[in-house]
């Protein structure tokens, strides 16, 4: 499916935790095509910033034509987005990339930090048995929404919420079980998840992050190394924006 370029209208935006914003957009074109695990490219208004910002889709409402994004203010671009008000226009392109492939197996959904938001729409989309494992540094967010959909195990670095430690600690302590893992989060977490899945002998689909320019597979800026030769690039590199962001953990060579 071809992505669309669209002028989205901000429906609502609120701060849901320290530096974390929750934004709903009216963008019927992108919404009609969106799937869990895909992302949008958001364009900055400030013209000194040329590159679009990739943000994962956290919620899809195809009927209303709305998409929901939850993001962290990481720098100047996301800061700019966080200042948009209801009714403002935001240029975007999407949906982009290859999302999660839902398999009919008991699922473990693992989100770490700002990798948590995309797991929410995935959790909704999975109709079978599922458990969510969410890892926070400190202040939790989106927790209640997850809890409405599935059992949740929580880990936090500071130990204030749930298990003190990593998502793997939470899985072990809470004895979370399943036949497939879907995960998004920081690289060290994904590496730990991949190792865990390998040891358990189950599939893990992991969503990667890389700096991007085109977002559509043209510039080769955003690759990850892969064990096998990628059919498109003809080398052991896949494009995170196009072949991913979701990859089978077994394919990925961690840096």
């Amino acid at each position, binding site marked *: 499916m071809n992505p669309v370029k669209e002028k989205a209208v901000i429906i609502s935006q609120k701060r849901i935790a320290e530096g974390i914003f929750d934004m709903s957009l009216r963008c019927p074109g992108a919404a009609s095509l969106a799937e869990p695990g895909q992302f949008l490219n958001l364009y900055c208004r400030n013209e000194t910033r040329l590159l679009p910002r990739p943000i994962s889709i956290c919620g899809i409402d195809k009927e209303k034509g709305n998409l929901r994004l939850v993001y962290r203010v990481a720098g100047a671009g996301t800061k700019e987005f966080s200042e948009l008000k209801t009714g403002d226009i935001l240029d975007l392109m999407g949906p982009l990339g290859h999302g999660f492939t839902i398999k009919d197996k008991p699922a473990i959904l693992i989100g770490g930090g700002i990798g948590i938001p995309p797991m929410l729409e995935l959790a909704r989309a999975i109709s079978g048995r599922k458990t969510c494992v969410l890892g926070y540094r400190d202040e939790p967010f989106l927790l209640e929404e997850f809890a409405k959909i599935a059992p949740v195990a929580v880990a936090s670095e500071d130990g204030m919420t749930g298990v003190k430690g990593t998502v793997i600690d939470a899985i072990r302590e809470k004895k979370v079980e399943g036949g497939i893992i879907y995960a998004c989060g920081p690289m060290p977490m994904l590496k730990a998840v991949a190792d865990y899945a390998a040891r358990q002998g189950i599939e893990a689909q992991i969503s990667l992050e890389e700096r991007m320019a085109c977002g559509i597979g043209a*510039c080769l800026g*955003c690759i*990850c190394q892969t064990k096998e030769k990628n059919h498109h690039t*003809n080398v052991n590199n896949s494009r995170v924006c196009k072949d991913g962001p979701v990859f089978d953990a077994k394919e990925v060579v961690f840096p």
Partner: protein
Amino acid sequence: MKLQVEIAGKSFKNPVTTASGTFGSGAEYEAFVDLAALGAVTTKGVANVPWAGNPTPRLAETCSGMLNAVGLQNPGIDLFCKRDIPHLKEKGASIIVNVCGRTIADYVEVVERLSDEPVDLLEINVSCPNVKAGGIAFGQNPDALFEITKEIKKKARQPVVMKLSPNVTDITEMARAAEAAGSDALSLINTITGMKIDIHRRRLLLANGTGGLSGPAIHPVAVRMVYQVHKACSLPIIGMGGISTGEDAIEMMMAGASMVAVGTANFHNPGATMDVLEGIKSYMEAYNIVDIHEIIGCI
């Protein structure tokens, strides 16, 4: 309104092409651009064998610009000929193939491999700053540039466009070396070497250390070099560097470019090539210009 231009005897329906490396092999942009409506598609640099390129991060943003250190990742000439050329032809696009290599033999191999392909021009990238071995030296030394141009010209069946690096003291010296060696046209500018430091993590942001600066930030440097080269030699020029509007393109053409390439602007606006083309037409209408040649090198 006549938009058709010629480069080394090849004619293109309009003067707008894509800057190599920013437009893949065209297919990725088909959702936004009719490839047949472009003057030509210039493809990502291709070598004799597949290259994996540099580690990531390969990209960084700068003020009105960006740095890239992709390192010429490419699928190799075989897959390129089998997959990308037929696809572009099927879509009705004119094709400029950007060629890279580590040694003269690498380049010559690619050029020979393209002999019977339906390719309009060969753009030779001797200026990519991201390749440590070979590449850069050719683009920064007039003797080396002369040498490689001469060898490529011996074998090339299509016109040869040497693509110059801006990272030199005197761009006209390079242009004259390429001209003397028989280059049929010139293309400039490639990226300017830059660097960004992640001050929070205290390390170079790009895995490669340095990267090539592109985008509107470099436009005035590109215009200057195109102007200087246009005055210094008589080869037709494909001008590029920070073009994102029709006005930027007109400026580049007035400086002496017969054709312009749109690069980094595609990332900000996937329809940038078409917007540039429309902008050129609007300018021509506003000033009653019937043939684009009236503005090429008119300064």
